[in-house]
């Protein structure tokens, strides 16, 4: 049980008062952005990257992970009380949760979401701790070609396997890959696509792109769609506490949601929301009260909320052990690691075990903090929803630009922010997914490096790319992930896929 002793070591690291403070700040911020519609955890971490530069790496990373977990808790509040999901992984929760709130059962809906999130987060974080050492052992044997194949799989699943059009997903991905070309080539030092502009030699900052596309793009989009009427916050009536029957109906849904959500997060399939859809479908099929679905069935809140927290923990498996982000938030967290000169992957477990295990252990602590923040203090968060939209978005714009100004107050950088913001807006209007652009920008240079390394080892022999069983299998899966959904769509079965569309978190 080496994982257990590592975890104990990690707990002793994470108990440091400063790190506890970072975790508390992270989960509080995370809950707040989860509650507020329009801003999600990916964006918040991106905003904080420049602010944390020069602070303690362990503390900052713990804070980022806390924001990720907190966002998953907070999103349910908005879904249940406002019928507007706070972040994309809570869309499903709005279906049943809002109906429950309208029927005066908002309290139990919030409670089953919070307790389900807690249980799922706890189990999934433990699963992460026990699984990580095994994945690390496997990953140590990975060569450049295997990494390249893994990234290809990641590209395809993030961009085109889900959503309503493979074409639009691939276009988004290749826009990201094109942006990744800008700057100095890592292997030969030649400038690509810089056009003599010195600010472009460093390449396009991940944080600038992420903030522009997620925050500014969303703000433009909401401004453009303002015609739709204001939403009504439903007051919580009656008891917050769940009845014995609620408990009896919830606990199985929590566990099933966890079992569904964790592997979905861990696979390079992008996004926590896919697990929530599958969990909802499973609960609907297995329920003894199918007639309640659509009218406020508690299982329909408990299962998906557990699933989205479990997949948040699942996402950390490939991120920490392979350095492979499978969601937008994970991609931004990878940028956070790199900002501190750390490269997640099997080597990080060897060179910096204290940091990795401290991070994993602190997630267990963060989870407990979140339960306290979200059950007794729920009334405070609900008040955030009463901020009028003009003030809310004006504030979001100030903080969105603050990060970029703090990192690099040049007009060129800010102009890029504006241009990418408008690009994100137009992409939203015309139904192009955003996450593939960010994933392409982050993974593009890594994939190129691994590819060129693999070819160097084989002295230019292209067949080396399918030369190991692992890389051949992964590439075969990538082709399947590209072709099978396209065939399904052609046969008119695309509706299910577009429902599974991976969005930003």
């Amino acid at each position, binding site marked *: 049980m080496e994982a257990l002793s590592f975890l104990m070591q990690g707990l002793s690291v994470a108990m440091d008062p400063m790190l506890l403070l970072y975790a508390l700040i992270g989960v509080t911020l995370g809950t707040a952005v989860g509650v507020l519609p329009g801003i999600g955890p990916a964006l918040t971490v991106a905003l904080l990257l420049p602010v944390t530069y020069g602070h303690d790496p362990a503390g900052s990373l713990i804070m980022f992970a806390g924001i990720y977990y907190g966002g998953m808790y907070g999103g349910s509040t908005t879904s249940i009380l406002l019928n507007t999901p706070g972040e994309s992984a809570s869309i499903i929760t709005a279906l049943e949760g809002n109906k429950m709130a309208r029927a005066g059962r908002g309290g139990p809906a919030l409670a089953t979401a919070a307790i389900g999130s807690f249980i799922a987060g706890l189990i999934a974080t433990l699963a992460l701790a026990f699984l990580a050492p095994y994945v690390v052992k496997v990953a140590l044997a990975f060569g450049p070609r295997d990494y390249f194949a893994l990234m290809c799989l990641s590209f395809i699943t993030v961009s085109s396997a889900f959503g309503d059009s493979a074409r639009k997903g691939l276009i988004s991905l290749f826009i990201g890959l094109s942006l990744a070309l800008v700057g100095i080539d890592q292997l030969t030092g030649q400038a*690509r696509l810089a056009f003599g502009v010195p600010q472009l030699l460093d390449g396009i900052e991940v944080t600038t792109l992420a903030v522009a596309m997620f925050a500014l793009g969303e703000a433009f989009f909401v401004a453009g769609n303002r015609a739709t009427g204001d939403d009504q916050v439903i007051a919580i009536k009656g008891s917050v506490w769940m009845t014995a029957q609620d408990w009896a109906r919830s606990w199985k849904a929590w566990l099933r949601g966890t079992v569904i959500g964790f592997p979905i997060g861990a696979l390079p399939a992008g996004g926590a929301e896919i697990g929530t859809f599958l969990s909802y479908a499973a609960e609907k099929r297995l329920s003894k009260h199918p007639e309640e679905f659509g009218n406020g069935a508690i299982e329909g809140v408990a299962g998906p909320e557990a699933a989205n927290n479990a997949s948040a923990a699942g996402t950390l498996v490939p991120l920490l052990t392979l350095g492979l982000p499978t969601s937008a938030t994970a991609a931004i967290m990878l940028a956070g690691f790199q900002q501190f000169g750390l490269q997640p992957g099997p080597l990080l477990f060897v060179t910096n075990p204290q940091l990795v295990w401290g991070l994993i252990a602190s997630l267990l602590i963060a989870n407990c903090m979140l339960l306290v923040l979200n059950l007794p203090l729920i009334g405070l968060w609900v008040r955030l929803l009463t901020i009028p939209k003009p003030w809310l978005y*004006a504030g979001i714009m100030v*903080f969105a630009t603050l990060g970029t100004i703090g990192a690099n107050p040049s007009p060129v950088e800010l102009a890029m922010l504006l241009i990418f913001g408008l690009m994100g807006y137009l992409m939203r209007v015309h139904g192009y997914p955003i996450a593939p652009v960010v994933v392409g920008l982050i993974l593009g240079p890594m994939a190129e490096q691994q590819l060129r390394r693999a070819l160097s080892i084989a002295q230019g022999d292209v067949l080396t790319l399918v030369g190991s069983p692992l890389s051949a299998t992964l590439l075969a899966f990538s082709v399947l992930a590209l072709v099978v959904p396209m065939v399904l769509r052609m046969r008119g079965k695309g509706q299910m896929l577009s429902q599974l569309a991976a969005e930003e978190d």
Partner: protein
Amino acid sequence: MSGYNPSQRRPDGAALAMAGLLAVLGGVILWDAARLHQTGGYSGVGPGDVARWIGYALLALAVWSGVAAFRETPVRPPRQDAVSVLWVAGGLGAQILLLNTAGFAIATGLLFAFTARGFGKRNLALTIPVGIIFALVVYLVFAGLLKLTLPAGPLEHLFLGK
């Protein structure tokens, strides 16, 4: 054969525009890759090769988009309120222009007010002062306490006294 003739319908303008943009982007990347000095080393793949593949992929996607514009039923995007979007974008523009002369608080205060205008708070005489005070508080917290370097103007010097 089934009497369906795609050319009778108007093509999807958005998809056509996307096809054009992708073609231009692909062309620029190919042009840039062609002028790179190729040093493939052992791999036989130099800095220009990966760029060239991406360029070709973009051209292929441009063709795909162009074909789709004529064959797929266009999805009408939701109606957009352009004036509101322009107010928010204009706020950012004002911030970029004023940042290094007027300082963080005034430039960001204008961004705040213009954004609020885009979301329906029309009274700029109220929102600009509120925005400047808000941005000044943000400045004092982030530059003063968290040591973030933000451009200072007359207002900031007044408060931090430099």
